């Protein structure tokens, strides 16, 4: 087949990404950690590690343990804090053309708002991803993401301060009805939804009868969660996102172009690579090439046509 021009660009709200590939928060560092392996400018977007108002040390070790086709992590939102992020990392981010999204987290709504206000002043940041779904901190995080009333409140409060920046709300799968949470976020101004964060899980050392992770529990990610993630993305797409016209940034266990395409067919506009980067730090670039080939094979001229094409 002729190498026709395929339009890989997708739209996240008002923002155009050159392709659907993004990094997942917490798995690709703050900005330049992947430089030795790929050209960050080839990515559709970059989502940073979660940033909080004050720096956080994070949990004791072990912070990770491998499981069958996956891993558990309990990093505990270790990060340098918003002040240092703005001072040290924004200048690095300015070197790239890629739209950068800063993932933000906190223990109180005021903290989220304070971090959002600070980051909104940075021109180079395209948007914020609201992490209301981290399973590894004692307060805040996931408790916000499991209660629709709190999701309304936090999305609404942050939306007031972010002005023209894109607001993505990241959902946890650790709920009975993910669509109820998605609806709450969309109603209160989320420009996009991202899903899914990790599943709360545990690994036990049977010799010591103790959990392996110092935090006892951790979040399961990687290929093991992919089919569940695809299902949840399709569910949120059908029940909330499609009718509201809100794009989904989706991931969970993506390693290959086929994985990414599954998510797009299920309803994703953009896809994120998390755990996959640990094994193949250059996999995003290969996935972009793979998506191109798939489009050629299926005579698709624009990848955006694929979103939600599930029969």
């Amino acid at each position: 087949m002729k190498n026709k021009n395929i339009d890989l660009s997708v739209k996240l709200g008002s923002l155009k990404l050159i392709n659907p590939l993004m990094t997942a928060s917490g798995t690709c560092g703050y900005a330049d950690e992947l430089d030795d392996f790929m050209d960050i400018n080839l990515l559709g977007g970059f989502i940073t590690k979660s940033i909080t108002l004050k720096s956080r040390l994070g949990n004791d070790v072990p912070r990770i343990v491998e499981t069958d086709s996956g891993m558990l992590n309990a990093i505990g939102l270790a990060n340098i804090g918003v002040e240092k992020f703005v001072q040290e990392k924004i200048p690095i981010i300015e070197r790239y053309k890629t739209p950068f999204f800063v993932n933000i987290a906190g223990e109180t709504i005021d903290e989220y708002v304070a971090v959002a206000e600070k980051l909104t002043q940075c021109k180079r940041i395209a948007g914020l991803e609201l992490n209301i779904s981290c399973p590894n901190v004692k307060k805040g995080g996931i408790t916000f993401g499991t209660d629709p009333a709190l999701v309304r409140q936090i999305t609404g409060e942050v939306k007031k301060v972010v002005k023209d920046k894109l607001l993505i709300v990241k959902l946890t799968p650790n709920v009975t009805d993910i669509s109820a949470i998605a609806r709450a976020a969309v109603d209160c101004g989320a420009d996009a939804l991202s899903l899914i964060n990790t599943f709360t899980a545990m690994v036990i050392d049977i010799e010591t009868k103790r959990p392996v992770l110092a935090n006892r529990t951790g979040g399961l990610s990687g290929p093991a969660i992919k089919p569940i993630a695809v299902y949840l993305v399709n569910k949120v797409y059908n029940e909330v996102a499609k009718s509201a016209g809100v794009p989904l940034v989706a991931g969970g266990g993506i390693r290959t172009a086929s994985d990414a395409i599954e998510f797009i067919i299920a309803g994703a506009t953009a896809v994120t690579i998390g755990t996959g980067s640990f094994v193949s730090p250059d996999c995003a670039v290969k996935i972009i090439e793979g998506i191109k080939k798939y489009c050629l094979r299926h005579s698709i001229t624009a990848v955006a046509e694929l979103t939600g094409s599930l029969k």
Partner: protein
Amino acid sequence: MSTLPSKKGIFTASVLQNRGLGDKFFRLSLELEKKANTLFSSASAGQFVEIDVSQLALPTEKLIPEKLWDSSQRNVLLRRPFSFADIDSSNDCTIVEILYCVLGPATLRMKTLKTGDAVNLIGPLGNGFAIPEDKKSVILVAGGMGAPPLIHLAKVLKKQHQDMTITAFVGAKTKNDLAFFDIKTDKLKKKTDITLQEFAKHNIKTCISTDDGSAGFKGFVTESLKNRLGENKPAGEETIIYACGPEAMLSATAVLSSEFRIPCQVSLERRMACGIGLCQSCAVKCRDKTSGTLYKLCCKDGPVFWSDEVVWE
């Protein structure tokens, strides 16, 4: 260590040899693809690689030790870190040696590697041992599986700093656990009186200890080290200790380092999901001049640290 982040890359390597040393220890020689030459020619002892073994098959059932049967059934997803035991980048090609111990699903799969097989690796990673110019005397402390980077370091020191006096303290549970070394026994001497060729060939004086007394001194390697330091009282400004092994051994070595005022670098191990600074899984609690403690990353800031910057638990 706080040097600038070094450049790293993702490469394929072909297996030159994968030789068993005793029942659970192996030596793996890898020849890297040509484009790795520049990066690896400046790599240092103490640095490491992350090997992808997820594509490798398990050995046949007969060859899986009963103790590892359950864990062998687990899929391997993440890469595994291994220190350099040697790097040879002469003759326009890079040969990397790894000494590994079979402990679980990944290393069990590595056993099946055959000459000519391809493996994928990321490296060179982390910061290796720093070698201050003003040191005249070096003490190596290797415990159990911690020997590989010190075998590499000994070779580098002998080559680049001929005038340094090197003494090695090597400890293991039993004589069988010294299998990373090429062991020579002298017929005229006692069975417990052995020499380790990797050090002997460089004329490095070696003190061996085993927990059960099956070779050398009976007891911990750090006891043997303490006795020696007590007798010799080496000058702290001229001496440096390099240590790698179980964390308890490293923390005991750190205590001796401060007691005898001899600076000490330790190579630490952590569970690593990425090895390249993406995930923060490999935290090492360190002292911070201003605010008490902070976590550094074993894969990026380490794996070699000054023993007095680590907060030993």
